[in-house]
Structure formats: structure tokens, C-alpha cells
């Protein structure tokens, strides 16, 4: 995914602001990256270089940590982040079917973002709601006992809400 100049500038500025409030010891690396991701939604190369400079470590080491941990993402997330639980209980109750349904509806693969950046799709390794399996999350909201038709329904209700918003704006 190609970033615009504006996005690169935003990444640098926000990273600098976060870094200025943090110490320069190496053990703050992960907390700092978590804060940058919370603010930007992802960690672009520009931000990694800023972090490396601030902590006085090679940029490749930052890249190593970012790519080691599942939590960090390298590309901007969609406005609606869809996460499908792939824990044991969800898997046995058809988590992969739910994942396939999202892939079909959004026309993207796991780990990708739709070209309009409305949706991104990820797998998570158990959100601890095993008793409501299978579950999917949209942003932080948990949707329990998902079905393929339920996926269609959630997608259409988002489409509908978007359309209504556009109509309100154009009016």
C-alpha cells in the first residue's frame, strides 16, 4: 500500500510527539511502538526510523520487533477493522467459515485492507469469548455466534449506514 506524502508527514510528526514524552532506554521500545500504533493505527517505515533514532538503535532492530509481534501492523488499517477469532472453540464451531465469508463479502484476503480503506480483515488468536463462539470483532465490538448470513447482514448494515451518511451530507 502506497502512502501519501501527507500520511508520511503525519507519521513523522506524531511519532516525534510520542517519543518526546518517553525516555530513551531500550526497554521502552514496545510501549512506544504500542503508543504509535494507537495513534496512527499502524507503524510505517518513517515512524520506525524516528523510533530507532530516538532510542539509538539500528532501524532493523525496530523492524525486527515490529514484525515479530502479531499486534503491530505495517499497513494502514481500514476504518472498520474486522477481526475473526481463530481460537480453539471458534475454530471447532466454524471460525474458518466465518473468515471465508468475510473474505468473500469484502473481496480481500486475511491481512489485507479494502482499496477504499473502509474495511481491513485480520485473524486473532482467541479473544476469550469462547462461550459465544464463533465470534468476530468490528473495531472493539464483539459480535457473538456469527453465521455466514450474519456476516452479510453486518456488511450490508455498514453499507447502508455509509449511504445514509452520504445522503445527509449531499442534502
Amino acid at each position, binding site marked *: 500500500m502506497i502512502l501519501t506524502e501527507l500520511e508520511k508527514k503525519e507519521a513523522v510528526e506524531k511519532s516525534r510527539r510520542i517519543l518526546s514524552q518517553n525516555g530513551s532506554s*531500550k*526497554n*521502552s*521500545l*514496545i*510501549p512506544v*511502538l*504500542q503508543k504509535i500504533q494507537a495513534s496512527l493505527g499502524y507503524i510505517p517505515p518513517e515512524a520506525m526510523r524516528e523510533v530507532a533514532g530516538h*532510542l539509538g538503535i539500528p532501524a532493523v532492530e525496530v523492524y*525486527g*520487533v515490529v514484525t*515479530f*509481534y*502479531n*499486534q*503491530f501492523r505495517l499497513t494502514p488499517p481500514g476504518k472498520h477493522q474486522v477481526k475473526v477469532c*481463530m*481460537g*480453539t*472453540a471458534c*475454530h*471447532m*464451531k*466454524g471460525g474458518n*467459515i466465518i473468515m*471465508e*465469508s468475510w473474505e*468473500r*463479502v469484502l473481496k480481500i484476503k486475511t491481512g489485507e485492507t479494502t482499496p477504499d480503506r473502509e474495511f481491513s480483515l485480520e485473524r*486473532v*488468536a*482467541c*479473544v*476469550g*469469548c*469462547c*462461550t*459465544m*463462539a464463533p*465470534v468476530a470483532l468490528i473495531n*472493539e465490538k*464483539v*459480535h*457473538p455466534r456469527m*453465521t*455466514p*448470513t450474519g*456476516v*452479510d447482514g453486518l456488511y450490508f448494515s455498514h453499507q447502508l449506514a455509509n449511504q445514509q451518511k452520504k445522503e445527509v451530507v449531499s442534502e
Partner: protein
Amino acid sequence: MNNQNNAAERLEILRSRALAHRDSLRGKTVVAVGTATCGRAAGALEVVRTFREEIERLQVEATVIEVGCMGHCYAEPMAFIFKPGFPGICYGYLNEGLASRLVQDFLVEGDPCVEFALAANEVNDLVPTFQDFPRGMVEQKVVMEHCGFIDPENIDHYLAVGGYGALAKSLDMGPGQVIEEVLSSGLRGRGGAGFPTGKKWSICANAAGPTRYIICNGDEGDPGAFMDRTILESNPHLVVEGLAIAAYAVGAAKGYFYVRAEYPLAVERIRKAISQAEEYGILGRSVLGGGLSLELEVFQGSGAFVCGEETALIASMEGEPGLPRHRPPYPSEAGLFGKPTVIDNVKTLSYVPRIIRNGAGEFKNSGTEGSPGTAIFALAGKLVNTGLAEVPMGATLRQIIYDVGSGIAGNGSFKAVQIGGPSGGCLPEETLDTPIDFDSLTRAGAMMGSGGMVVLDQDDCMVEMARFFLDFTQKESCGKCTFCRLGTKQLLGILERITKGQGRPEDIPLLLELAGEIKAGSLCNLGKTAPNPVLSTLKYFRSEYEAHIHEKRCPSLMCKDLIAFYILPEKCERSCDACVGSCPVEAIYSNEDRIKVIDQAKCVKCNSCLVACPPQYRAVVKVSPPDLVAGKGGENDERKS
């Protein structure tokens, strides 16, 4: 000595204030809604809002509070209503409509709506109590005693039930005595390995150097386990107190909560608990007004399963990728930043306050000789009553599954129980009378693990189960040891082939050989236990592997490549379109006789039509191997020609 008396006195002041607050609620109506993550997923926040709005609208005198989870997750959202003149009554399966009805009928008109009641908190003539349930005979709540009954975001609630009393008592006993008490209680680490906690503490306390650290391991990564999350969300102060006592015992001035980033609510509640305890002078520069200083902090994990392993956890806190290192030296001698560090699981620490308060003897009264105390299991899968169960060690799997979990949901029959997550194994029917403790489970071929228990029925394929766990460990392997990094990939490849119907006769011996080598060639427990799911399913369910390999058939009708969906023409009710509407890919059409037919080329095998077909028809079936469909009349071939 003066200092210590001071601590007890200070706590007494705090407690009497908390009790006064609680007594002010006596004689008033209180609605306590469970809003832990499981409750929220089921809609608990909407229920809370409805209760508040309706109470406001109807001008009822009642307080709505949010509490944690009692462990009855199957019935979420749940609420306890305490109304003077009635026992505390618990209602389950709530929604907005039911909540507003309870306000109108019960709070206003005084009809407790027993038809919606789940249980009561005391013996009465209206509703049975939880003790009257079959699970009441088995369960024994020690750690979860207050979960779901106190407001986790209000320290006064914890103080009112005797909270932080054990910390004050510890300060009075002195560190040596505290360790002695934990040692003699026989408490073993509940993270899975079962190392004696007191021994770990005393090694750390005796290690050289003035700086020591203490870490609470809340990196609960096992898919299928959610005990730590529930405790952190429902009674965070209990864990804070346990950690504070441990810190005092080993002489640490700084402690950390390492909590998964996937548990935002647990992180928030622990942070709140720490800051409340600091505000009350229970933590901080001067613990309970004495000379002890203790600073606690939350460190959020970043989604790496291997970080549940203690040396990997330490690496991640030091800003490194979470790679485990060789032990010894154990962290209790050289851990975080090279300093002696004690790392204890959430559940382990949760037992500590009670052991200190009531003595080691009480703790040893339950459980078995080698594994005293209770065990907490997260029950999930094909059970009627999913949720959390706290039972004494030594209870059998059968008791947990059939008494606590009320058996298999639907008309299913029990096939296996998966214990211990990706490191554990699948145990079949004949092992159900195995008593649960650290040693017996290992002997049976599973392991205690952190306590996730997923129950499987006849529709679950054991090869697919093994493939799922291998897929998980293969992705989560940190890559340090070759056998774990590449060996798990090979194992996974073979299992994938088998589930796709491309298995070869030599695959089973190959799996066994590779499994042994991965176990021998890995540094940490992730690799050492990674082949367990394969080994245990091969031991107990070998015939399923053989059916996949030799007959290209999945006996449980689960492996997608080996099944097909088919509509029985003689059972199809022609005027019903339920399956057509349910299909997400428009693969179902009506033939000239208006009988529904599945276009096998389009079908994505999502199970929707099977669920949608009304129970009086049951016309949709799964068949394996898939070419059986062609033999059943071949509707599809007809259409193609």
C-alpha cells in the same frame, strides 16, 4: 513492630469506611449486572443502560452497579437483583425487553418473575440456589469467591469483603514467615508447569543483590482459555494483593502486570485497581503507612504466544523480540535486566491472599496430596453450560463435563476433551474418570496447561483438531530452534495433506518420528509440547487418521475437502425456500420438480443450508467422501448436460 501495628490500624480505618458505604446500601434495592468481556459480547452494556433508564423513568429507588463474571457464561448477560424482602435473585439470558420488564414487574410491583430466574444466593421458597444445581456438589470457589459479586472498579467493595487484610497480616509476619506459609501450603504454579510457588520465592529471596522484580504473568495465550482474563476483570484487587504479598516476601520494590493486549478491559481494570490502591496508601512509597515501598505497573504484551514462556516474556519487556533463552539460570536467579525475578501466573497469585489469611492448613484441605487446592477451568466447545468452573484438584473430568457443564449440547455424544491448549492433548471417553491434577493428566497424555478445556462431539474431526493446533504452534514458533521452526511446518504439511484426502500410508509413522524429534530438539515448552496434540490424537483416535488416508473419508464430516452437502429429494419440501435464502453464494436452485439442488461447483460448504433447513424436513445432509453425491442421482450432472 510499631510500624506493623500501624498497618493493621490503617487498614481497619479504610475497611470501616468501606463497610459504612456497604451498609448504606443495605435495605435498598441493588441491581448488579455482570459486564466482563463475555457479558459485554452478549449485550450486557445495553442491559445496564436499560436498567438505568427504566429505573429513572419509573422513579424507582434502586442502584445499578456493574460487577464481573460469576463463571456462568452460557447465560450471559446476567444480573443479580437484591431487593429487600427477597433473596438475591440471579436472572440470565437478559436482553433489553426482559430488563425493562424486571424493573416494572419486580422492582415496582414486587413480582420476582421466577420464570426468568436462574438461581438465588440463599435458600428460599421461590428459586433454587446455585448449590442446588448438580455443579454445586462439585464446585468449590476459592479464587472466584467474590467474582461477580463485587464491583471490580471500586476498591471499597474489595475492602468490605476483607480485602488487603492478608497484606497487612504479611507485614506483621515478616517475609520469611510468608514464604514459609506458602511453602507449607504446597501451592503449585497454575500457569501449567506446576512448580512449587514457595520454592520459587525462596530461591529469589536468597539470590544476591539488592534489586529484585516481581511479575504477574497474564499473557494468557492458549486459545480456549479465559480464566486469567475473568479474574483480572472481575476481581483485580485480589491479584494486586497477591502480587504485593509476593513482592514483600521476596523483597522486590517494583512489580509488573504483563497482560495481553487482546484484553483491553483487563488492562483498564488492573490500571484502575493499582491507582486506587495507591490513592488509599495501600501501595506506593509507604505500603499501609510502613517502611515498605512498592510500585506496580502494567506492561501490555503485543500478541506473541511464546511470551507466556517466562524467559521470552522477560525478553519482550526488555524491548527485544520474545525469544526464550536457555535455563538455568532461572529467572528467580537472573531475570528481568539480569536481576532475580519471580514470575507467577494470575491464578497462582490469586490464591496467596487466602493462604496468608486463613493459613496453609485450609488450602491443603482441598485437592490432592501432590496438588493441593482448587483448579479453574474454562469450559468451552459443545457443552450445555460453558463458562468457568472452579473445582478441587482430584475431581474427575466426568464431574466437570457432566455435572458442571451439564453434558453435551444438542443431541450430540461426547467424543473427546481437549485440555491444555496447543501443548495439551485430546482425551477420549475412557479416560474421563482420571482425577484432575498436575501428575495424573500428564500420565494420561494431556497436561494441565493453563486450564482451557474444549469439549468435542461426534461432529469434530480429530485430525482437523491436530492440524488446527499445529497451525497455531507453527505460526507462533519464535524460530529460534530449528526443530520447532521447521519440524512443526513439516508436521503441519503432512496433516494438511491428510485432511485434504492426499494422505499416504507412510504418513503415520512419519508423524510419530518427527514428533519425537521436535520434542527432543526444542529449547522451550512451546516446541517440547507442540507435537502433543498429534501424539494424543494418534494414540486414541488412530482409526480417524486411517479413514482419511486410506478411504479419503472424514468420519466426522468436518474436513471440507472430504465432504459434500446434498439435499435429499425425497425429504425436500418443495414450497420451502429456507436453504435458498440462506446460501451466501447462490449455489442452491430449484429443479423442474421444484426440489432444491446444490450446485457442487459453487458450494463453499459453509453449513448454512443445513442449519436453515427446518427441523421437520432435515433434507440437507453431509456426505463423505464427496463423490457419493454423484451416485445419489447426480442432479448436478444432469444440469450440466
